[in-house]
């Protein structure tokens, strides 16, 4: 069972890394719009997830929960800021920097979750992760560093809040089987991506009717009607939404069921290296660019991953002592 859990966790991580590498490739090589790409791919992904789940209980209850709307909004915002970050740095660098969410999750849980206290291993691992992140951030080009770190902090914040909401979502907590989890997630993602779609179209309509010189700065950031109908963005999002996104979510639920959380987290901590391997493979075919990733970045990545592994090991020890 342990081997099977490890295998499923590894497949999940490979799918996650592939999704990230491909997203960056589409952004850099095909100039897809990150907001529209995220919104449309998540909408299609939700349809596929609902199809996988089939009819059953939990749908209406999910829609009635305020948690659902908060979770969905955070999911869309997180994917968008992640895409904006990927427009500036490589998937490998982004994956290393995203480990900051481990520290953010622990600190937020310490503040908001009653009875949660970081253990000894957390205090060993967190400085290691911070040092690694510092080295990777110092290696970024000065003209993009501030913006990349800004998107990173937002992504980490949205991701951590999303995880906290998922842990307290009444229907999501009740959902036990993979199908139930697919159904709940499908309805959550569909409602929020649809609301965002309507919002984007309304804003694009307003933008089209307001003279360019009188347009507000906020409107300039939002996509226009022409961008909303961009074929490359929509077809790339459709392919991503039908294939990788639902697979990533399905396998994540599956891995959470067959592998222990600690085992999954342990495997997940090596995701940046899988992303690097995939980026290298793409680069050897003349697609993408990994020259930004230096040996120093990889060494810093190793420090980050070792810090994450120390923390996961602490949790593993705690869980085994509890089960004994």
């Amino acid at each position, binding site marked *: 069972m342990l081997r099977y859990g490890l295998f499923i966790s590894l497949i999940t991580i490979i799918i996650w890394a592939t999704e990230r590498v491909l997203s960056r490739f589409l952004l850099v090589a095909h100039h897809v719009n990150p907001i529209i790409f995220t919104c449309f791919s998540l*909408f299609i992904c939700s349809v596929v997830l609902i*199809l996988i789940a089939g009819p059953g209980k939990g749908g*209406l209850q999910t*829609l009635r929960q305020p948690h659902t709307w908060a979770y969905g909004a955070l999911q869309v915002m997180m994917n968008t800021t992640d895409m904006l970050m990927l427009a500036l740095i490589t998937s490998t660098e982004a994956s290393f920097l995203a480990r900051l969410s481990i520290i953010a999750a622990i600190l937020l849980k310490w503040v908001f979750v009653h009875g949660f206290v970081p253990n000894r291993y957390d205090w060993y691992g967190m400085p290691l992760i911070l040092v690694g992140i510092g080295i990777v951030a110092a290696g970024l080009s000065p003209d993009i560093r501030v913006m990349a770190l800004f998107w990173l902090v937002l992504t980490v914040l949205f991701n951590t809040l999303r995880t906290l909401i998922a842990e307290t979502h009444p229907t999501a907590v009740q959902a036990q089987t993979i199908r139930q989890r697919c159904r709940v997630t499908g309805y959550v993602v569909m409602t929020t991506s649809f609301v965002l779609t309507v919002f984007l179209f309304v804003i694009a309509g307003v933008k089209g009717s307001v003279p360019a010189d009188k347009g507000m700065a906020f409107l300039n950031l939002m996509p226009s009607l*022409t961008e909303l109908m961009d074929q*490359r963005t929509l077809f790339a999002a*459709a392919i991503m939404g039908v294939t990788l996104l639902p697979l990533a979510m399905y396998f994540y639920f599956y891995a959470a069921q067959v592998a222990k959380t600690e085992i999954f987290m342990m495997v997940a901590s090596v995701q940046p290296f899988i992303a690097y391997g995939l980026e290298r493979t793409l680069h050897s075919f003349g697609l993408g660019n990994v020259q930004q990733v230096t040996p120093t970045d990889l060494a810093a990545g190793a420090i980050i991953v070792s810090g994450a592994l120390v923390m996961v090991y602490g949790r593993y020890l705690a869980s085994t002592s509890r089960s004994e």
Partner: protein
Amino acid sequence: MAKNRPQAKVIDFGTARKHVKPATEAKATGTSQPKPFLETWLKNHEDSQSVVQENLSLKQQKRRLEEERDSLIPSIPESTLYYTAIFFGLIITMSWLIGSLLWGKS
């Protein structure tokens, strides 16, 4: 002494409720035999309990209806929600893609 009381009715509380005829039924059949106190008491108690239960379920129904009236999402069967979501999702996806083919730039 004990032999002199064969007619005395022993009330078995476990089965009493099953044997009791409703008061309305008794009136309808025209039987005017006086009912023992405990039987009548049990009957009245049972009737009052059923009224209380009925009121409670009415209250629950009323509360549920009020909740549903306040909710933006109407109460529909889960299977209807599933097929509606799939239909709605496919319509939005296809219209957006076809729209991009007709009016969008490649």
